[in-house]
């Protein structure tokens, strides 16, 4: 897996997307604050940047990073099917569960490393571009800094593994990427649109909040009490993390089941 250039390229993208996104967001924040200063309407909550804004900028790259990590996860297995490499792999080790687990382990470690380095770069960049970040954190978001800095990369690992599971399920690049994007982008988009446009379907907010992308937002926002959101039910950050783990476990379990039984070639 790591001997391929495409793997390194995708890992590099996962890493560099984060400071890039942080830089853009920090610049946008400074521009907005500057406009407010000129019009005597200083956006006090922007500069000096509140911790909320600061940490939003730091983790903003995790959202595009999630997509790239998922696609990397899909490709780790499915690119072997597009050639006949899978035959070499499985004749070298016919225990398919073990093959998938080994790939998952390598994928998890490499994704975590790229995401962690990227997030630390984002943090440094945000500290340089957004001074005054040490504003007091809201009471319902204790430990947001640690949660984002250490939890963010781990959540990206979950998305990468979800991609691996969906790749094993479909055993095709297009199918795997389609499933992953459907789950992370299209499903929340449809649920969100329906919830917003159709009257009397407020209950759709619950499944919307259980979609992987929405769970990522909840996790990174560090929400500790549902009541603060004003919504009937909303998972807390740790519940969101657990539900994301269930999504990943489900994808991996289904993928393993199908991959172990599939005819190759």
């Amino acid at each position, binding site marked *: 897996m790591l001997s*391929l250039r495409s793997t390194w390229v995708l890992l590099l993208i996962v890493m560099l997307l984060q400071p890039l996104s942080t830089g853009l967001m920090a610049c946008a924040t400074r521009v907005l604050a500057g406009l407010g200063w000129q019009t005597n309407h200083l956006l006090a909550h922007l500069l000096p940047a509140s911790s909320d804004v600061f940490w939003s900028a730091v983790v903003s790259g995790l959202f595009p990073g999630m997509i790239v990590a998922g696609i990397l996860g899909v490709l780790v297995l499915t690119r*072997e099917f597009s050639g006949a490499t899978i035959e070499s792999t499985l*004749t070298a080790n016919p225990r398919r569960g073990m093959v998938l687990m080994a790939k998952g382990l390598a994928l998890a470690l490499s994704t975590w490393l790229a995401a962690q380095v990227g997030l630390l770069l984002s943090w440094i960049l945000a500290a340089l571009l957004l001074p005054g970040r040490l504003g007091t954190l809201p009471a319902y978001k204790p430990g947001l800094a640690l949660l984002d800095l250490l939890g963010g990369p781990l959540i990206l690992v979950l998305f990468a593994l979800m991609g691996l599971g969906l790749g094993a399920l479909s055993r095709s690049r297009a199918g795997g990427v389609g499933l992953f994007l459907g789950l992370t982008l299209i499903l929340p988009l449809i649920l969100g649109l329906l919830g917003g446009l159709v009257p009397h379907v407020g209950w759709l907010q619950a499944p919307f909040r259980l979609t992987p992308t929405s769970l990522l937002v909840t996790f990174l926002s560090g929400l500790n009490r549902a009541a603060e959101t004003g919504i009937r039910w909303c998972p807390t950050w740790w519940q969101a993390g657990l539900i994301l783990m269930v999504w990943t476990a489900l994808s991996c379990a289904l993928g393993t089941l199908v991959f172990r039984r599939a005819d*190759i070639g």
Partner: protein
Amino acid sequence: MIGIDSLTKRFGSRKVLNRVSFTARDGRVTGFVGPKGAGKSTTLRIALGLVRPDAGKALFDGQPFVRLSSPMRTAGAVLNPPNAHPACKARDHLLALAAISGIDHGRVDQVLEMVGLQSVADRPTGSLSLGMSQRLALAAALLGDPHNLVLDDPLHGLDPGGAERVRDIWRGLASQGRAVLLSSRKINEVAQIADDLVIIAKGRILERTTVARFIGEHSHDSIYAVTPQPDQLKAALATAAGISITRLPPDESCPPDAARFRIQGAPLASTASILAQEGVVLYDFQPEEVSLEQAYKDIIRGRRDARS
């Protein structure tokens, strides 16, 4: 030893293997021959755990492939090359496979030298010719110094020099007491290297024999005749001693009103005289050296006709 026992497999409603059984013995090269779609590759893929059989089993030294503790040391396989990622260098591909099985990295250079690929070891596999990819696949199969080799159409794409090189490798391995099972569509290709022969068509084993016996049974000189008067031809030659006349199945070159015959044990000139005297009309009359390929085709066609 590779044991294939009553393998049966359906893909949807199509039965591709029907109780296929044979053994590739230690110390021998076994040729597994059949036309395209006969079930050769499916049999080998089932043996290697890539395809699940509906019934039957395949064993390497008494064990299913998927349960072997060190698969690459027990069985090496060449399947459908190129089977390395095109961006991956040839040496890196072998190093990755060696790492999977805990094989010493020094072995990679040994197998590259065996198949003559040292000079292209650092090239991406996507830039290798089909023949080189075949040799790289063989190098991968040899990594674990396996006791059994499974080769699916391994000479496809090889130039004569490359083919001779890999044949020497297989002969050497068989002479060391290993089992070599190779599939091919071309019986002549197999006859040059194999000791034993298994012929398959439409998912059924048609013949299990040795190459020597097959050649003995099917290689002989004869006369090929096509006539619209089959009864007159048989009657004209009926009194001649030691002659055998075999009616061949019709083929596309045979006119619809005619029949094809193989006449064995008769000199060409005297047979022609007899048929001329008897006024037998002939569309075709020529000496024929029955090739292995022809005998193989006749076997496949004959069994197919017998079933239909």
